[in-house]
């Protein structure tokens, strides 16, 4: 057990945890931020995607001891009212079915658009294929990303 100061959604938070604890569980169990989801724990599904200094990472693979002084953004911190262009596009396309994967999908999509503001079909396939949607909403996810890219 050790104490860590980590910066989540712009605030410094203190956490006492085993240094190996993945940020995913720190967010969910310690910091009461359950928007970031657990799906596989082995970097295969993308449900746990957050931003580390603005880039998409799988929080199930990121130990708390490795993120000191770095900016973590979760779905809860993406926008104040759910009005980030990507969130708006998601609502416009009514993407979700069960909705469980969608926080991870959105965090990945935001990161994709940051790096490639005008992504091609292939860019989207390449970047988003790490995120599983068991309900099969991929066509809507793609359409929403293309729409968000316009704004």
């Amino acid at each position, binding site marked *: *057990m050790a104490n860590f100061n980590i910066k989540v959604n712009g605030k410094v938070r203190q956490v006492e*945890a*085993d240094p*190996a*604890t*993945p940020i995913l*569980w720190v967010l*969910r*169990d*310690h910091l*009461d*931020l*359950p*928007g*970031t*989801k*657990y*799906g*596989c*724990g*082995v970097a*295969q*599904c993308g449900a746990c995607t957050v931003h580390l200094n603005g880039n998409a990472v799988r929080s199930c693979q990121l130990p708390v001891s490795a993120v000191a002084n770095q900016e973590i953004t*979760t*779905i*809860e911190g*993406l*926008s104040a009212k*759910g009005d980030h262009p990507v*969130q708006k596009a*998601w*609502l416009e396309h*009514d993407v*979700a*079915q*069960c*909705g*469980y994967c*969608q*926080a991870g999908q*959105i965090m990945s999509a935001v990161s994709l658009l940051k790096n490639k503001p005008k992504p091609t*079909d292939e860019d*989207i*396939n*390449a970047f*988003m*294929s*790490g*995120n*599983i*949607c*068991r*309900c*099969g*909403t*991929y*066509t*809507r*996810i*793609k359409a929403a990303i293309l729409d968000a890219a316009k704004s």
Partner: protein
Amino acid sequence: MENIKKSINRRSFLKASALAGGGLLLNFSWLASAKAAYTIGNNLNAEPTWTEITGYIKITPDNIIKILNPNPEFGQNVMTSLPMMVAEELEADWQKIEVEMGPHDNVKLGPQFTGGSNSVRMYWKPLREAGATARQMLMEAAAQTWKVPIEEVTTKGGILFHQKSGKTGTYGSFASKAAALPIPKEVKLKEPQHFNVVRSARKNVEGLKIVTGKPLFGLDYKQEGMLIAMIVHPPAFGMKLKSFDAAETLKMPGIKAIFSQKLYEDGFEQGGFDTRTFNDMLVVVGKTTWEVMQARKKLNVQWEPAGDTKDTFGGRGQKREVTVPGELESTDAMFKKMQEYAAKPAQQLRKDGDPETAFKNAAQIIERTYNAPFLAHNCMEPMNFFAHVTEEKALVAGPLQAPGWSEPTLAKLLNLPGDKIEIQMTRMGGGFGRRAYGHYLYEAALISKKVNAPVKLVYTREDDMTYGIYRPMYTATYRAALDANKNLIGFHVKGGGIPEHAIHANRFPAGAVDNYLAEGWQIPSNITIGAFRAPRSNFNAAAEQSFLDELAEAMGKDPIDFRLALLKRAKENPVGKDNDYNADRYAGILTLVKEKSGWGKPENKKYNRGVAAYFCHNSYAAHVVDMVMKDGQPYVERVFSAVDCGIVVNPDAAKNMVEGAVVDGIGNAFYGGLTHKNGKPEQSNFHQYRMIRMNETPKKIEVHFVQNDIDPTGLGEPPFPPVFGAVANALFKSTGKRFYNQPFAPDLNKKEGKQI
């Protein structure tokens, strides 16, 4: 007018009362057809019996309308589409409606069963009647206040109007007065052409919560002082706990308790949906998820073969014992065993005419065998449940499709009366049938009782995948007898599975062939199985629709025309009784998909096209799958879908559901499969169990609904099964090879299309 209430006479209870602070609370209770909801499988088409469904509509003086949604949400959109049905008849302003998830209340809210594609179908009449009743009472209140005849009062968007005098008022302003009025004896329901909420797309009422990461799911549920629990289960089916040593593990940080406990004591009478995998629970309880995960890895545990065990089932007045074989099963051996059983005589399920003679006299016999593996549901949110059990009462909360089936078992297990058990249903991160089996809820409750604290039981992905209630392993052999003119004179299907066969003997092409025989057999197993999106149909459609395609080819016919001709026969001169499909609706989806996909049109030549159609869960679906080669692999680039599910309540959400079913079908057809080695599942996470991803998803899925005014017949499952067949048929066009074994991807990459 058919829609004038007939069923209102069956109403047992309706109560209007004033809300504290003014307003109307309409408690409604109708008798609705809900028997079908209790049955998965054969009896879905049985005449419904009637049960009571209660709910409420609340209207506050400031015109906020709250509607209680009775059914658990797992992505099928009931939180939106069921309230839409109320709003339609209430003539409310959809923007002002708030939806609340109902608690579990077996008496008041009816079966509350999410499954069998039944939610909309089951609640279609009662919820509209509730809306219409509330509206009529508000109109009466306005008529009395304005001193005008009720016939002159109109409503729109939550406002009452009297045109002649120009008077208007909100529902909210008349709600308190309406609450004091007698309940109308009869109300009129709208004719479909007057719908303006139903049939127009409404956005998911929980959309904003979803995109902002609000805690909606079971895994997000939290309470002060809550502990986390995990179960260490045997490494293989057929094994059980021998001993364990927790001395070291108990010293690990955050760990509170480690113990073993039985889920069901010997002889405990399980209900039909209490299916569980392992009865011995080795439980680790601690403060946080990560700590518990670490501790359980370090546990020193010995396992041993369980040998044959017994399960006792109760309910429906019959107690029966089932022996579960103790074998440590392997997929190869199971497959061989299926081949042996397939050669033995089987149970006759249906026979028309004289199939033996037809096959004896045939000029040509085509025989093909199809196989499919166990499938894991892999809901995105792994199984979990919260429980807080004390001596006096229990609160449990989590993702659950069928609270009504779980409560009686929970009451027996905890020795508490039903009214001391509160079940809350969270939004589910997928279900697909998996969450109809409440064992994980019982496990959580027993753990909470033992440690005397609020507990959330969490399955890891590995637990979820290797500790599942799988889609069974299936096989079926289809035979067709053709005469010298290539007419179909006999049809024979013999299906089997571990531990059940998939045959629906009365489905198409039964009824369309003079000489018909359906048979089934099964092999018991300790690998646990249950409902998986369109149980049994999801295999049948693949096998039968591939076979029909091959048959059409052998007969030199177009696959759509061939099916249409059979359906024409089934309609005009049906063979046998109990054909459980409507030949017109079946033909309707084929005709629609033919038109919409431009079937046979030269501009579609570049695609390798496969078609399939199927009926299940009361609805009809057909797909044309357009395949191309991409990076040397067949890729489904486009799909055209035609669906007849009667009236479509929320069209865009319904489209989403069909798109999802198409993607799910393509994924499972190509990649889905769980195999075993000495009882141990060989796939434990997504690095081994391949799921369809964005890059394998079609570029375009075009969904068309048959426009008719038939009461809704269900949508969650019907579009799923025929995808498998359409994919198999397109693969033939792409590769020149027929694919008989699911999943298809491994065979694709073999030189010879070897059987499993």
